[in-house]
């Protein structure tokens, strides 16, 4: 498996983090993991919803000092 890709979307507002993720997910292989860093609270809820809708695996998220770390795996 490739090294986990980090998408640093800190400071970007909705839907910026989601759009950065969608651009970034095309750059990794199926089965690869991505971590999105976001300071946008709405995106922390929206990204897992988007993953569920389009069929990628949500691995979990945590918030540290105002930054959400959203982890996922490209499934298709």
């Amino acid at each position, binding site marked *: 498996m490739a090294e986990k890709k980090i998408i640093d979307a800190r400071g970007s*507002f*909705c*839907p910026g983090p989601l*759009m950065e993720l969608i651009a970034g997910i095309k750059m990794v292989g199926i089965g690869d993991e991505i971590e999105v860093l976001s300071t946008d609270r709405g995106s922390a809820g929206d990204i897992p919803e*988007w993953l569920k809708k389009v069929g990628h695996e949500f691995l979990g998220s945590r918030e540290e000092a105002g930054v959400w770390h959203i982890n996922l795996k490209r499934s298709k």
Partner: protein
Amino acid sequence: MVDSNKISVVVVSDKREQLQMAAMVASVGAVSGNEVLVFLSMNALRYFVKGADEQAPCEGPVGKRMEQKKVPPFKALFEQAVTLGDAKIHPCSMAMDVLGIEQGGLEDYIGEAMGLTMFLDASRDGQVWSF
């Protein structure tokens, strides 16, 4: 209740908040597996003339705050709706004629001019949002 994945967005306003919300609906809708059709008309169309850099005026405090924050520009979101989500964006043929805009005069991600009859037909059986 609409049972379809079609989302049509009519954009006529030249105000920043309206354009931003339209772009958000179009981009997020498109990348979430929906068939998105955007129809640009009236005062919204001029922002999509190739090379246009006019800033859309704000309606209220949120628009002013958006200027200061790192909010994705609405034109970038519309372009991402096309490039990442395969949305279709068409200018209104009437507005093109009124403004004297030729087909090649709009940004490259904008499709061919569309008449209202065609738009209404294409947007049947789906959600229609107006800004």
